[in-house]
């Protein structure tokens, strides 16, 4: 048999085989697809009804005026033009951004400091002990934290002012004065949330390869140089991730100021989410509240985008 005929025979055999398999293969693929759709069905249904559709409805509602009782009225961009001339709402976005920046900077810096110090410990159990302790505040609910922090930061009877007086410092009007109330919010949130960045950074620092550190120490790099030239660049993707997540969370700050100060004194701690809550669920202006909610989403997307753009220059990917 020549090679040519052989090839022809094999080709025709393969062709007939493929032909025989094709309807079956198609049926199998269709069956797999049906199976796939059935498997994602529940999740798709719940996410569609309670997340996807609400996003679209929220966007739609922001062009309506609606008090829940009478039918909604289309008002075009009126909610948005009103929003940009509404001093109270705009100030709530200002408060949100100021608090968020304070929270994120402190949370990242403190988390990194504690993580580096714990990472330098030699004994495994000391590491575990510190990790557990700094995680503990995350086990309390934000409501619980707001309650006991409210007592601790009380200007007259609070423990914090008591100890300040003990060491010879004057009392601080924590929740009474607008500026200190904002500082208090930052401190309360950071106290609870620093465990999150801390745990992330410890995990990331542990994965820094030891041979790199050894090489650095042989080349004569001291602890500070090792930290800023080697460890921080190597974990910079984690720092970016922690910053983005902390920022998204901080921009949605609600529980602590709502419970501790109701947004006061004045409007010093009225965040965008509190402003939206008051507009929607207290004054029943659902259309206007939706416009605030949409603006919040847009600002979060912009801030996140800016962080990723800035990270292009700062983050080191291996």
């Amino acid at each position: 048999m020549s090679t040519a005929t052989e090839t022809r025979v094999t080709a025709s055999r393969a062709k007939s085989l493929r032909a025989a398999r094709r309807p079956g293969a198609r049926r199998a693929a269709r069956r797999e697809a049906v199976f796939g759709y059935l498997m994602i069905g529940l999740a798709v249904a719940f996410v569609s009804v309670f997340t996807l559709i609400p996003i679209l409805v929220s966007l739609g509602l922001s062009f309506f005026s609606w008090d829940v009782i009478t039918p909604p009225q289309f008002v075009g961009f009126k909610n948005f033009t009103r929003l940009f001339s509404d001093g109270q709402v705009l100030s709530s976005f200002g408060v949100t951004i100021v608090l968020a920046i304070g929270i994120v900077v402190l949370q990242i810096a403190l988390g990194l400091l504690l993580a580096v110090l714990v990472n330098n410990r030699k004994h495994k159990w000391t590491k575990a002990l510190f990790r557990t302790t700094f995680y503990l505040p995350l086990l309390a609910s934000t409501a619980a934290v707001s309650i006991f922090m409210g007592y601790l930061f009380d200007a007259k009877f609070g423990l914090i002012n008591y100890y300040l007086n003990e060491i010879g410092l004057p009392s601080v009007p924590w929740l009474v004065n607008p500026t200190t109330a904002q500082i208090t919010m930052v401190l309360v949130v950071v106290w609870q949330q620093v465990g999150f960045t801390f745990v992330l950074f410890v995990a990331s620092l542990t994965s820094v390869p030891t041979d790199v550190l050894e090489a650095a120490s042989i080349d004569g790099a001291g602890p500070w140089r090792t930290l800023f030239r080697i460890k921080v660049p190597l974990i910079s993707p984690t720092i970016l991730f922690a910053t983005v997540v902390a920022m998204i969370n901080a921009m949605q700050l609600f529980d602590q100021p709502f419970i501790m100060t109701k947004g006061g004194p004045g409007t010093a701690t009225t965040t965008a989410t509190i402003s939206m809550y008051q507009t929607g669920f207290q004054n029943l202006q659902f259309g206007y509240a939706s416009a605030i909610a949409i603006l919040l989403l847009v600002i979060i997307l912009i801030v996140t985008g800016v962080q990723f753009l800035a990270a292009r220059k700062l983050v080191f990917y291996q």
Partner: protein
Amino acid sequence: MTTLEVESTLREAGRRRRPIVKVGSVVGMIVLIIGVIFAFGPLLWTLSTSLRTPAEAFTNPPQWIPTDWDFGNYVAVFNEIPIGQFFLNSVIVTVLIVAGQTVTCTLSGYAFAMVSFPAKNTIFGVFLATMMVPLQTIIIPVFIIVRMFGLSDSLSALIIPALGSAFGTFLMRQYFMQMPRELGEAARIDGATQFGVFWHVYARMASPAIATLAILNFSGFWAEFYRPLIFLNSQSNFTLPLGLVGLQGNLGTGSISVVLAGVILAMIPSVLLFIFAQRYFIEGVTAGSFR
């Protein structure tokens, strides 16, 4: 340079360097201990104040370790507010959401990772996009939908909207993606059904991811304040965080120790779970950090 000289310079260098490292280590330890005091202090104060009589609650300096343990506040918290009811409500809401999401997210995460079907990537992309949207942006429409279904002011208003999750799906998908496909193919050749492959082969291997998702959901929904505040009106439906804040408002400053007893009671399940499943709490923090 002779060998001796070299040795002596080396020794000198070592002598000069070693103390610096030690000082650094001691300073580091001091900073860490200060950190522990600040992290632990407020929790310890809460615990010790909850064990003091209401009259002594605000005495400064505080008795960090109460001499007379007074569990009266823990009895009072049951008498003065329906904390038993709040606790039960919180348990129902949290357990059902955890169970529900375990089912929906494991199924969908598996399909997105292992099964091929048309428009898979598009649907998954939409899922990912919804993860960016804050709860506050969708809360008004969800409130309207919940009312349309006649669920307002009920525990179902909290449970049903939370039964599916784009994030949970994403988390499970990431885990299933790492699993070898050959196992499933082998099982198929042996005659297992599609669902059989999922159920008997892959779902069993996914238990660490399921545990992580369950712990994440437990911590999130046990502590949740925002949705209960909006969806619930009658006190008999309140979950613990909302009930505790109400308790604080109703009782005023006279019964701080009673309020704090409630705070401690609300923390007990989280602490217990943390003791037994600490690994999954830590995993939960790092789970989202995909590189």
